């Protein structure tokens, strides 16, 4: 069974309050030298069978319509090599 990974990030120009909160915690915990933190989402999608071109195209469609909102988010998609 193949796995497709979709990583979703807020577009750079969109404020990320969650990333800012994490960045604030870095400072309080003494992790210095961090200029910025942005938080995203990772989806690991396990397919029934092989990652054929057709199936990956379907997942790309799912990413476009559901997993990411193109108004505020960008995403990258890759097929993970078999373990």
């Amino acid at each position, binding site marked *: 069974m193949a796995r497709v990974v979709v990583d979703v990030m*807020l577009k750079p*120009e*969109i*404020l990320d*309050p*969650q990333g*800012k*909160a994490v960045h604030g915690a870095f400072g309080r915990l003494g992790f210095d030298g961090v200029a910025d933190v942005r938080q995203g989402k990772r989806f690991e999608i396990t397919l029934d069978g092989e990652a054929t071109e057709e199936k990956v195209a379907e997942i790309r469609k799912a990413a476009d319509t*559901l*997993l990411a*909102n193109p*108004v*505020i988010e960008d995403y990258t998609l890759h097929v993970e090599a078999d373990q």
Partner: protein
Amino acid sequence: MKIGVVTFPGSLDDVDARRAATVAGAEAVALWHGDADLHGVDAVVLPGGFSYGDYLRAGAISRFAPVMETIIKKAGEGLPVLGICNGFQVLCESHLLPGALIKNHHRKFICKDQPLRIENNRTAWTSDYDANHEITIVLKNQDGSYVADEATLDRLEGEGLVVARYLDENPNGSYRDIAGITNARGNVVGLMPHPEHCVETLTGPSTDGLGFFTSVLKAVVAS
């Protein structure tokens, strides 16, 4: 005159929205997310709450509910639709309205009485307000920060599609203090604050919210 109010799993304000419709003189009809039939309603309210627990993004999963397929189609034909808070998020996710709503910039939940200015009183939901009418209604949200790219914001302003703007301090980081917008036809309105909580003096800071519901009664009669 029937106003339908959709209940999604996790909707909170559906009962208040139905009550507001009744107070305004309409017959309130409960609509269910899993039922694509609108049961002959003349207008639809998508209420506030946390449908699907705001999983993925606020409104992102509700947008694909069977009832939304019908609402999206009918909205294109002129059906008046008001999305309040989570309903506004659903309308943006459905692409019935441009832009998106993200977490409040200060990362805290807000619950307060919020002054607003009604900047467009030509929509199906705001005709009972005067131009630039200032009202105070409840604002309570987590993902209330309205965002869109500069071109979209310029278009909204240029075409007069900003329905309501926050007065005093911007409560949630919304770009250009935008509290509510409409589509070009004026039948679809998204609003972050809650007019349905402000229709009776016993429980609200004002009755300023009632105008949204009385406006749509007139819009339906006129059409």
